[in-house]
């Protein structure tokens, strides 16, 4: 997805003279062509993430469309107040694109982990949050949302699905219908969920847009009263947006995601997923347990 970002951004800069790319000393080599072509509109701003976000807001006040990029914890967590106030409160638009989703930089340790990014961004009213499952999905999402004058957060990950799902604007997707439970897969979790449920009579819903959340799709596909959520960030993050379904009906909800604790091991993300039980086998078992309740 990171490679696709360079191409997407190159096209964005070519098409719109009021578009600006700001890098926090990350991805500089990947965007080298844009640096050469648009030296006035592509900045390696340095390692000062809070000021980087505010700087972008200053551009946005004049109608410029800024796209800001660095590693997730340094953009979302370190500069959260700048996103909240300078963009959210002031009603300004900007694109925020991160890498290092959850544990993509597992080997670098907890300073570079960020399973809390989506949960935090959900706390800024009006923010659009995209968790693409493939590079193509990201490209399409960016093409129709990058200039919407809102906060648009794109969470790029190393993990991805084999196939792209058609990107309908801000909608969820019905992958298959079943009777015993509904399984909601977010972004790159879809392949794992499809494998886990290949022989189960369940509904699969796919969401690569977390906010605004397509609550109608979920409401219309929850006859079993049992909802299993597979999310690539902290478990139970999506409960913030799925909560409205509980107003109308009793639903048994379980979430599988990154556990809410500091992860102190290194290695690769796949090793962590194995330890968390974030694999097809464990998910299948947990869904079956839910069905049996």
């Amino acid at each position, binding site marked *: 997805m990171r490679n696709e970002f360079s191409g997407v951004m190159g096209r964005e800069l070519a098409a719109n003279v009021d578009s*600006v790319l700001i890098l926090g000393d990350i991805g500089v080599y990947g965007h080298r062509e844009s640096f050469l072509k648009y030296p006035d509109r592509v900045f390696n701003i340095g390692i000062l993430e*809070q*000021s980087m976000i*505010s*700087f972008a807001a200053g551009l946005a006040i*004049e109608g410029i469309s800024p796209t800001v990029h660095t590693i997730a914890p340094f953009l979302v967590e370190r500069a959260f107040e700048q996103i909240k*106030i300078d963009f959210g409160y*002031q009603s300004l638009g900007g694109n925020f694109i991160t890498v290092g989703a959850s544990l993509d930089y597992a080997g670098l340790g907890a300073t570079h982990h960020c399973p809390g990014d989506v949960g935090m961004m959900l706390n800024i009213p009006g923010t659009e949050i995209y968790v693409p499952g493939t590079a193509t999905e990201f490209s399409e999402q960016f093409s129709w949302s990058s200039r919407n004058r809102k906060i648009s957060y794109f969470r790029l990950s190393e993990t991805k699905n084999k196939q792209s799902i058609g990107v309908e604007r801000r909608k969820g997707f019905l992958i298959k219908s079943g009777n015993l439970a509904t399984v909601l897969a977010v972004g790159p979790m879809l392949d794992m969920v499809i494998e886990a449920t290949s022989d189960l009579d369940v509904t699969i819903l796919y969401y690569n847009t977390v906010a605004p959340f397509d609550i109608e799709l979920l409401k219309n596909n929850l006859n079993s009263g049992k909802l299993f959520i597979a999310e690539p960030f902290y478990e139970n993050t999506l409960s913030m947006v799925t909560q409205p379904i509980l107003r109308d009906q009793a639903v048994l909800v379980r979430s599988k995601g990154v556990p809410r604790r500091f992860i102190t091991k290194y290695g690769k993300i796949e090793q962590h997923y194995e330890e968390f039980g974030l694999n097809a086998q464990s998910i299948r078992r947990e869904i079956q347990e839910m069905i049996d309740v």
Partner: protein
Amino acid sequence: MITSRDMKELRRLILTSASLSNEGHIPSALSVLDLLYVIHKDFLFDEQKIDASKLVQNRFILSKGHAAIGLYAVLCLFGKISEDELNNFAKFESRLGGHPDRNKLPDVELSTGSLGHGLPQGTGLAMALRLKKLAGHVFVLIGDGEANEGTTWESALLAPNHKLNNLTCIVDNNLSSERAIDMGNMSAKFTAFGWETIEIDGHNHSDINTALRIRNSDKPVAIIANTVKGFGVPSMESKPEWHHRSPNAEELAFFLEELR
């Protein structure tokens, strides 16, 4: 002199409004009041009249947003808001909050309140004007206490690096920071970061006007404005207990009597 009559009127407006609302940071508003007055009179409102197209429109950011009541008083003096509205300061449905909101008042460039946001946004705004080839100048007013914030120095590093010669940072050096961190020589600090720097009496209108006109071809400008908290209300000057307190009716009458 017209300006001294204006200043007395501005102080009256601030004290009265703060007393009616039981809200506001009066000493901070009074320390920046001369700066606010000169900036608006000579660099915002007058120059806008000169160029109706607003292509050379200057921009002003009150980064130390807690001095908002001072800004509102200036807007009132120049007819942008009424005294009735000013006296609704910080009330439930008021447009005039304890910190300014750009979405409510057209003369407010930035919604501030959380310290350390104004200078980095002003840096971005100055860059935006350059990218759009607009001739306006960006003025950012920060506090010396606010300069404790790391973002101040991130931006102090960033702006000269991009040779933003359309940016002026004014530091309201009212010694707010002294009880926490001694900021030392602010002029030397900004100079070391690559700014054209000048130190002035922040209550002298002539000095303020001259300093605000300083331009350097490839550097931003920092004005260290030495001020007094509560300036113009003798019993309030440099009295920390008034930092976030409003006068009752009896105190208001006393202050109005002693106004300079």
